[in-house]
């Protein structure tokens, strides 16, 4: 377990160090905007905000409402592509 956590930490460090994490984030953002994920979520945000009242909305509320939906709404193609890139990265750095 300890070893597992250590390994994750190293991988994360590698991701950040190489800049791959930033690249992946940018790629995901572009893809999500492209496929309309962002607009869908925004519409959902509107509903949530109207429900809660404009003055009483907090970031925590939004995150709690939005994140599950956001995760579910990501198209399969985007998810596959992203996973593929992560795997390639891991394979490259596992061989070292």
């Amino acid at each position, binding site marked *: 377990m300890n070893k597992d956590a250590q390994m994750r930490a190293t991988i994360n460090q590698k991701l950040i160090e190489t800049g791959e994490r930033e690249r992946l984030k940018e790629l995901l953002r572009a893809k999500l905007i492209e496929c309309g994920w962002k607009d869908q979520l925004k519409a959902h945000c509107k509903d949530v905000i109207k429900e809660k009242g404009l003055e009483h909305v907090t970031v925590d509320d939004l995150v709690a409402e939005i*994140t599950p939906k956001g995760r579910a709404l990501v198209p399969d193609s985007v998810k596959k592509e992203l996973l593929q890139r992560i795997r390639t990265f891991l394979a490259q750095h596992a061989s070292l």
Partner: protein
Amino acid sequence: MKMEDMSLSGLDNSKLEAIAHEIYTELVEDACLGLCFEVHRAVKCGYFFLDDTDPDSMKDFEIVDQPGVDIFGQVYNQWKNKECVCPNCSRSIAASRFAPHLEKCLGMGRNSSRIANRRIASSNNLNKSESDQEDNDDINDNDWSYGSEKKAKKRKSDKNPNSPRRSKSLKHKNGEIGGNPDPFKYSNSAGINYETLGPEELRTLLTTQCGVISEHTKKMCTRSLRCPQHTDEQRRAVRVYLLGPSASLPEAEGGVENDSFEVAESQALMSRLQWDGSSDISPSDSASSKASTNNSESRKTKKKKPHLGLVSGTPGLGSSKKKKPKPPPPHPQHL
């Protein structure tokens, strides 16, 4: 490095897959969080609902997708059938051809049919008054060609030095307030270039016209002999300058007016005594002329004018005679 090598190499595929999924969820949650922050900020700043519109108004601006109309639901080639009526030849011309037609019809550019028409009309038409009218029209019609507009401007500026306002102010400066209104004041103000005239022409001109040479335009004044813009000294000086010292005001020889006859004669005498041989250009109508002896003299007399009726034997007498035509001039005193 050693530790990493060990850890990564010891992983099996399922574990790698789990890690990949973990990274993916992290990324997605990052994106969600980013969106949440964005939305929250928009809500708190009050611009989140700005792009909201009610569905009714959205209906009004829906994009129309039908054959024959544009996206606003309008027939897109309706203007093609529009026709305009030419104000010149009153034919109706398609709107797209109207501008070129107007150009031709009103006579801009090289092959202007209007100018040609006018020429034909004026050569055929022997009725002078009509052709005059047409000429007038041509002069006044400066809407259409740049050249004529320029000409008109030039004309204006030519006219400017003798505009009523200016002549009024000059009149005031020369002290002729209350003088009799001159009928030729505005009509005959073009000016003559004295250098092009022969001596005979000069003489005849000077017997009928004021003739004072303006300092600015170097042209002679073409108003009557009693034009209020110039004083008699100025007129006399011009005659001395142009015709020699023996010249005098034409009123002396011609006897234009009985009333002023003796005065003029006495003036002529005085001028002969005082101005002989002086070849200065006449003092101009502006008070800012250079200080020659003549000028200073004339200016002095101008200033003293109100009292000059009593002072005898000065050249400034002539200018005051207009104010008092009735009482007999004091010529016996200096004859």
